[in-house]
């Protein structure tokens, strides 16, 4: 193969790799500033000092339906200790999200990102995807999908982060 062809392929791969940068544990969380249904703005940077569980969900995502009651329970158990849960809805149509929320109410903050800015910034790999952010704004855990056997692990991780100052 000619050298220049190799160079072109290497360059293309490099550009491709830099564009798709997934958020990994130990990295600072990307910016997230979104409005909730009540018009309240949630800014992840301003939640520094709290443990934040960011969950990307959509109305058409079946596992999300199961994750909501669990997240409501999480907030009930650990909200007092400084846990904040932010559900980021990625539906294109707001009505779909509202219908879902009528069926499966959320006691945590729900914000809306129809443009897909934040899932792009986090490079979400599947629905739902969750990111546990510690008190310093660093991603401590990345969870793809919602699996019943992962609940205990996630909650113990949240408990550990809440005990850290």
């Amino acid at each position, binding site marked *: 193969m000619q050298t220049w062809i190799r160079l072109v392929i290497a360059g293309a791969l490099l550009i491709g790799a830099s564009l798709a940068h997934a958020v990994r544990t130990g990295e600072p969380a990307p910016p997230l500033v979104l409005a909730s249904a009540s018009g309240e703005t949630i800014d992840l940077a301003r939640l520094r000092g709290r443990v934040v569980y960011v969950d*990307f969900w*959509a*109305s*058409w*995502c*079946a*596992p999300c339906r199961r994750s909501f009651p669990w997240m409501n329970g999480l907030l009930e158990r650990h909200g007092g200790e400084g846990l904040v849960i932010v559900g980021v809805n*990625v*539906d*294109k*149509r707001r009505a*779909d999200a509202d219908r879902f929320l009528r069926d499966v109410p959320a006691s945590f903050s729900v914000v809306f990102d129809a443009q*897909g800015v934040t*899932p*792009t910034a986090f490079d*979400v*790999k*599947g*629905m*739902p*995807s969750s990111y546990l952010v510690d008190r310093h704004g660093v991603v401590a855990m990345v969870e*793809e*999908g*919602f699996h019943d056997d992962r609940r205990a692990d996630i909650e113990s991780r949240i408990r550990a982060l809440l005990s850290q100052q």
Partner: protein
Amino acid sequence: MTGSARRIRANRGARASARFAAVLWIACALASCATFDPPKPWEKGDLARPSMRFDSDPPAAKATQHIYQSKEGAAGGGAVGGGGCGCN
């Protein structure tokens, strides 16, 4: 060189450049396919709609597939992997 020999040579050159242009055109056409990004996991809302199913009646499709399997002695191949949801 006679006039006819020159004409043949010129003709051959034109044919070669036409072939080159054709190859270049095909290469460009194929390369443009690479610019189509598949939908991101959070953009699959429309793909997840019931109307996007290949089979209009899931239980009937399951029965058809069951009969097909018993008749053919072979399983699988009747569906595509993954739904609209990017979770599987």
